[in-house]
């Protein structure tokens, strides 16, 4: 008898195939995340996945766990509330760069500052894929999109640096080619107490790749040739510059008190009258 796919028990298989385009990397990042959930041995009833709007946001609808597909940019505030009300749950935010860093950018920095005990996985495909590929806060300089036909004049965010500077206790970046490393980083994040951030660089062949003359396999070859793994590198080196090479690895793994712990101690103690 033929066995089923090893991740089928974590998938709403009736919704698969996904809406993701052929060659889109979100599925690989999602699959690495499910593998990490499986390996973590955490009771699936105690894990919740929250996502926002965008192609990556669809993940919450494909996972067979308690999950919530929030309004645009609001995955992190929803997750923060969830974690404060139910500290026994492991809360994962799985969303895209547009949702987490453009419309939801403020929520990201403040959740990291407070050190809310959640794991945030950002699939970064450098553009607003779902709405037609417009330039986003993560689009590399000179990249072509429908809103930057002459090339993007802006500088993209360095997401690991932003996470670190805002206060995240765990920061890593990989590409979808490094699926085993993504799984390992997510596993470490799930075990970590505090705000953990994993960025996954991923091709968007239809909206980003096509306009920048990259077929899906070309993008993966760029990931192979132009990335350098440097665990422990300072996030200031992690800017998205293909000329000098894109730094991947686990950058930050530190400890500091979480928002939940402090809130419990400072605001909920039985104070003498």
């Amino acid at each position, binding site marked *: 008898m*033929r*066995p*089923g*796919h*090893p*991740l*089928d028990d974590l*998938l709403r*298989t009736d919704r*698969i*195939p*996904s809406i*993701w*385009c*052929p*060659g*889109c*990397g*979100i*599925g*690989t990042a*999602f*699959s*690495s995340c499910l*593998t990490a959930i499986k390996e973590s041995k955490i009771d699936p009833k105690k894990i919740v996945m929250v996502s926002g709007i965008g192609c990556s946001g669809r993940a919450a609808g494909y996972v067979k766990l308690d999950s919530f597909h929030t309004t645009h940019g609001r995955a992190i505030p929803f997750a923060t509330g969830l974690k404060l009300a139910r500290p026994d749950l492991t809360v994962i935010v799985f969303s895209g760069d547009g949702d987490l860093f453009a419309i939801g950018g403020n929520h990201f920095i403040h959740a990291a500052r407070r050190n809310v005990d959640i794991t945030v996985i950002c699939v970064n495909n450098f553009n607003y894929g779902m709405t037609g590929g417009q330039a986003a806060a993560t689009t590399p300089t000179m990249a072509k999109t429908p809103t930057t036909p002459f090339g993007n004049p802006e500088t993209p965010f360095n997401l690991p640096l932003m996470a670190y500077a805002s206060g995240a206790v765990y920061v890593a970046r990989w590409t*979808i*080619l490094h*699926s*085993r490393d993504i*799984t390992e980083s997510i596993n470490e994040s799930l075990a970590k107490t505090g705000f953990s951030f994993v960025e996954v660089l991923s091709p968007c062949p239809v909206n980003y790749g096509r306009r920048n003359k990259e077929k*899906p*396999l070309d993008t*993966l070859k760029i990931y192979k040739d132009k990335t350098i793994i440097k665990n422990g590198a300072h996030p200031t080196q992690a800017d998205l510059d293909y000329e000098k090479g894109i730094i991947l690895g686990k950058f930050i793994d530190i400890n500091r008190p979480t928002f939940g712990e402090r809130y419990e101690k400072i605001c909920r103690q039985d104070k003498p009258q």
Partner: protein
Amino acid sequence: MKFWRVPLDADEIHVSKGIVYILEDRCKGCGYCIEFCPQQVLEFSSLFNKMGYHLPSVKKPDDCLNCHYCEIICPEFAIYSVEVTGEESEIRGQGSEKHNETGS
């Protein structure tokens, strides 16, 4: 497997073997599994699935080492490998048969 230098403990090392299964109805024909299999086990077949995507097929079933890389790079949960143990090795090569979705 080709070695640049045969390791001294080559006889003691257990080299695993795998069977690759392809769930044809899920595949979107991106070719990542074909391109990145370290053993070049897969190739594009001449077949298309019902959504019109060009499917991979198993070209060299005996070369699969059950490394699972095709499984973890596939964005569509459409391919996976399973370790072959002694008696199962005869059923090798049946990997590209159509998957029966019932019960999954």
